[in-house]
């Protein structure tokens, strides 16, 4: 098994964190992982992206040429990385932020008004957890239980309310991913 993904969006949407949680969970499940951020003079509101790889075999290049999974949280990200997605790959997109979509018929789209759903759950902060749920629901690259365990350790004492919302968002994402 090897899953190469690119997550991209505006700075502040938590795209780097999507990759980080996936990589951490993959590592906890005994897989090889890598996490490579775009870095530079970037800021909130600018664009940000991360390449994450989860693999049974050792990872040669952490740079992803043809992602198996793309998470695009805005139109510029979809325009930039959409054409690179491997044939038969998965494009997860926030339709609130990607009004023009992507013209391809050889990839699997999981399109949802992700920003609306995050607000409905109670916070834009859970947008990235929703995306993680969609990745899990579609690819099973990591397990929900691993995410729950990690989030518990991270948030249970600090912010139980946000923890709850995060878990709801992941579960909702899994439903969307499976649909």
């Amino acid at each position: 098994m090897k899953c190469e993904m690119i997550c991209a969006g505006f700075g502040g949407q938590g795209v780097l964190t999507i990759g980080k949680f996936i990589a951490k969970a993959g590592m906890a499940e005994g897989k090889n992982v890598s996490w490579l951020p775009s870095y530079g003079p970037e800021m909130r509101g600018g664009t940000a992206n991360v390449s994450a790889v989860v693999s049974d075999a050792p990872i040669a290049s952490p740079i992803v040429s043809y992602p198996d999974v793309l998470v695009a949280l805005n139109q510029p990200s979809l325009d930039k990385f959409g054409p690179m997605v491997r044939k038969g790959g998965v494009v997860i997109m926030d339709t609130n932020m990607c009004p023009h979509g992507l013209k391809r018929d050889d990839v699997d789209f999981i399109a949802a008004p992700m920003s609306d759903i995050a607000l409905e759950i109670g916070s834009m902060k859970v947008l990235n957890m929703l995306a993680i749920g969609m990745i899990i629901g579609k690819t099973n690259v990591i397990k929900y239980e691993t995410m729950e365990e990690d989030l518990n350790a991270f948030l249970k004492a600090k912010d139980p309310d946000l923890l709850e919302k995060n878990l709801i968002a992941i579960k909702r994402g899994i439903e969307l991913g499976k649909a």
Partner: protein
Amino acid sequence: MAKVLMKGNEAVAEAAIRSGCRLYFAYPITPQSELIEYMAKMMPKVGGTFLQAESEVSAINMVYGAAGAGKRVMTSSSSPGISLKAEGISYIAGAELPAVIVNVQRGGPGLGDIQPAQGDYFQATKGGGHGDYRQIVLAPSSVQEFADMASEAFDLADKYRNPVMILADGMLGQMMEPVEFKEARSQAELDELGKQHNDWCICPNEDGDKKHHHEINSLEIDPAVLEAHVNALYKKYAVIEKDETRWEEFNISDDNEILCVAWGTASRIVKSAINEIKAEGKSIGMIRPITCWPFPYEAIAKAIGPKVKKVYVFELNTGQMLDDVKIAVNGKVPVDFWGKVGGIVFTPAEIQEKLEACF
């Protein structure tokens, strides 16, 4: 120890502390700033000293002083900052002191940009500073190796009383991968190490006899004395070349039709391309120099199998290690080169295209 997910910059800092580094002097620069941040946070917790110097020149001279005092000391920077340290590195090599310098390379020349590059190969392996000296250059290609090289660098620096550079790049510094750390050196081990340094360092002698002082100096005004000193250095370098040359062989076999040579970050991308091409039934091998100095000339010469029609060098520069590969190949087969510059990193797909065009 369980694996942790860490950036290369942080992993090498943690590994250095575990190796007994208790003194660290540096000046911040992207893309290695997480390293200096980590040291700022952790050094006080282990009873060490972190000091942000007013400049790179100052930092390397603090390293010179601390190394002279017999302590395990490190500094780090990125390309333009390493240029500023070059004079100090030459002094440290001349005075025969152990020190570890980390270079997390970025695009150049000049201030360049802050993206990953391999443009400092010449600087690291052919001098950088002035005069007839050599520094050991270790080139990691993963976060784990970056961390492992910290302890290796300190041991090599001590063994040969010579500066050792870990030559990484912005990608290795910024990326996160799982890393497993070695057990930290015990205080007893560090004390023992310190005693060995008493043979040459400027610390007071245990017998309290002030006549038994050691001189730390790179100035030898008498040509005959300097001649002997430089010749002695070159004998030491010959031993390092014989005993410390390291490389990785990837997919090397007698069936190889192409032999690739790549180092650091670039080598990982070439590996991905070779894996893809392997699936098509074509045979390509790769030599990855782990030490850029001493350079694995013999390993490359030996890896040119009976079917190899070309040696292909890939670097994130305009062809620097290329010169060393040409020396190794010595005209036996053609040597080709492709690189990307300016902080642009080639992709596995691009390398694959270049390699497939060879068949």
